[in-house]
């Protein structure tokens, strides 16, 4: 989790490692016990991931095997979620889908986090200096402004349209759209850390720019980035599905929630609800799981909330001991 390794000169403030006394796994488990909803989040995501990994063994049917004699069968046996217009088994497709959706969302978010944070760190660090650095930092920020002024969705579709329809394009589109978020976040962090005395000291001591960024700035700015990351993945899954829904995502018949919803979309008016309702439900539950995890990480990454929580846990423990 968000254990900021606070080695180096001076005591960097904002490090969460010091909060609350107890740390690590034990604290995490205690948190899950205290907030069962967070545990539910981890359970949902773990289930989805495990099902996706084991899909070849768990799924009753091949997810891309059309069976035209069984088209549009309502939920029942042996097709628990029914079949779609080409007779593919919806249940099998639903559990295969996260292989694509999660992979795209993770890859896109990670890329944007790495690229955005790096650019943001550089921009924040150099902004305070004179010369070409300031100019470049300003340019990066203005570019981010422009990027963010775009309507997100139209921009993502345009990126996919330019790059051609493929998995990689969707990853790049997701990454592009998210990069400015990390850029701003990191820059803000760096700007505040940059002013800290221990950083100034390192600067005066002649540590190189790169060294300072690497050893002091980035480790201390990581916690909020991590928190943002876990919140962002859920959102990236939604964006991936949305792109596929509109036809700018992965190629059919790849099992993917968004494109499954799209394939069943037309028939909902004629009463064939199952091809689009089940994948949407799976999508919503998964994103909900990620949202729960995200808020648990937010708590862990925020020293104040972490401290409060640790206090609460401690009080509970005492109360339990007292009753025992």
């Amino acid at each position, binding site marked *: 989790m968000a254990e900021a390794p606070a080695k180096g000169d001076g005591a960097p403030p904002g490090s969460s490692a010091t909060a609350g006394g107890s740390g690590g796994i034990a604290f995490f488990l205690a948190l899950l016990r205290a907030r069962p909803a967070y545990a539910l989040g981890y359970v949902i995501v773990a289930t989805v991931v495990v099902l996706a990994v084991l899909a070849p063994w768990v799924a009753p049917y091949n997810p891309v095997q059309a069976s035209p004699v069984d088209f549009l069968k309502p939920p029942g046996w042996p097709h628990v979620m029914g079949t779609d217009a080409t007779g593919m088994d919806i249940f099998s497709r639903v559990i295969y889908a996260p292989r694509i959706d999660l992979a795209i969302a993770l890859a896109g978010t990670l890329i944007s986090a790495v690229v955005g944070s790096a650019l943001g760190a550089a921009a924040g660090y150099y902004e305070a200096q004179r010369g070409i650095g300031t100019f470049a930092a300003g340019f990066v920020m203005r570019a981010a402004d422009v990027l963010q*002024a775009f309507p997100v969705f139209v921009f993502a579709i345009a990126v996919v349209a330019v790059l051609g329809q493929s998995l990689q394009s969707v990853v790049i589109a997701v990454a592009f759209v998210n990069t400015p978020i990390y850029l701003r976040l990191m820059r803000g962090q760096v700007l505040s850390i940059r002013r800290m005395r221990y950083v100034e000291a390192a600067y005066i001591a002649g540590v190189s720019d790169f060294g300072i960024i690497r050893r002091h700035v980035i480790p201390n700015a990581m916690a909020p980035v991590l928190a943002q990351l876990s919140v962002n993945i859920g959102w990236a899954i939604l964006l991936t599905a949305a792109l596929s829904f509109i036809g700018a995502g992965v190629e059919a018949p790849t099992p993917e929630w968004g494109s499954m919803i799209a394939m069943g979309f037309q028939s*909902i008016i004629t009463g064939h609800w199952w091809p*689009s309702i089940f994948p949407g439900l799976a999508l919503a539950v998964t994103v909900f799981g990620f949202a729960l995890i995200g808020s648990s990480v937010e708590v862990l990454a925020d020293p104040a909330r972490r401290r409060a929580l640790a206090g609460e846990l401690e009080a509970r423990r005492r109360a339990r001991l007292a009753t025992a």
Partner: protein
Amino acid sequence: MQLLAYLGRRLLFVAPQLVGILLVSFFLLKLIPGDPAVMMLGPFATDDGLARLRAELGLDRSLLEQFLIYLGNVLQGDLGTSWQTTLPVTTDLAQRFPATLELVTLALLLALAIGVPLGVAGARYKKGLLRTTADYYGLFAGALPDFWFGLVLIFLFYTTWALVPAPLGRLDFVILPPPEITGSLLIDSTLAGNWQALRNAAGHLVLPVLTLGLINAGPILKMTQSTMERMLESDFSRYAEMCGLPERVVARKALRNALPSVVTIVSVLYGFLIGGAVLVEIVFSWGGAGQYAVGGVLNADLNPVMGFVLYSAILSLVIYLIVDLIYFAIDPRTR
């Protein structure tokens, strides 16, 4: 005076930013494969005819030249023509933007009506049903794919229970729309006293507004709740409490102080939804601006997309300006 100076400074930054937005979108869109000339002339186009049309459209010039010509036209208020609708983009957008705005505005009002009270309640009570609802509503609403949620609502309220008109646009085909004044069907039909149209338009609005409103209440709720919590824990609230002011009064004061962040999140959502409502527009065949832009991207129809990007950028700027003005009104520190 202070305000005017501020606005002036803002506008100074706006112009280069708009040009930047146009520049990026222009070059990005130009990278999309697809030749509008081929699409316009169709299967029996001769090479000669294609060349002539490309020249007519200015497609034979360098990209930079094309951009400068485009920019020049924009300055004169000419956003070009969509080859798909054969109409000027300004005409098309004038027709579609109000559709989107009406939808988004109503959805955000609904979101506010749900999000703010629930957020306040969530912040005031540490336990209980309201608190739990508030805690999970935001997370769950944020997890719902809006396009799918819309489908679920259609399936329930239209297909199964037949409570709403067919989810196909803003007005039934047979209803005569009111004369256009504001572009909002609700307002226009009221002005015209056309109650049939009013009822029908309202019926069509129910599901898409519910879809977007319920989902976007999430972030508003979260923001209200967290800011309220901070305000309630802050010194001034503690002080007020100690002075023996009733809890309601303390909460009201805290809410007043939390309002700027609520306004901020609403403005951000507004800007986002102008383009972000596109999926819901598709699901309900709304014919809004986002739909128009996405159709443009996919059909090498550049002008509608550029026009849309420009309109929504300007609209976002206007919204942010209005937000700043609201700040002036509700936050004494800015005065």
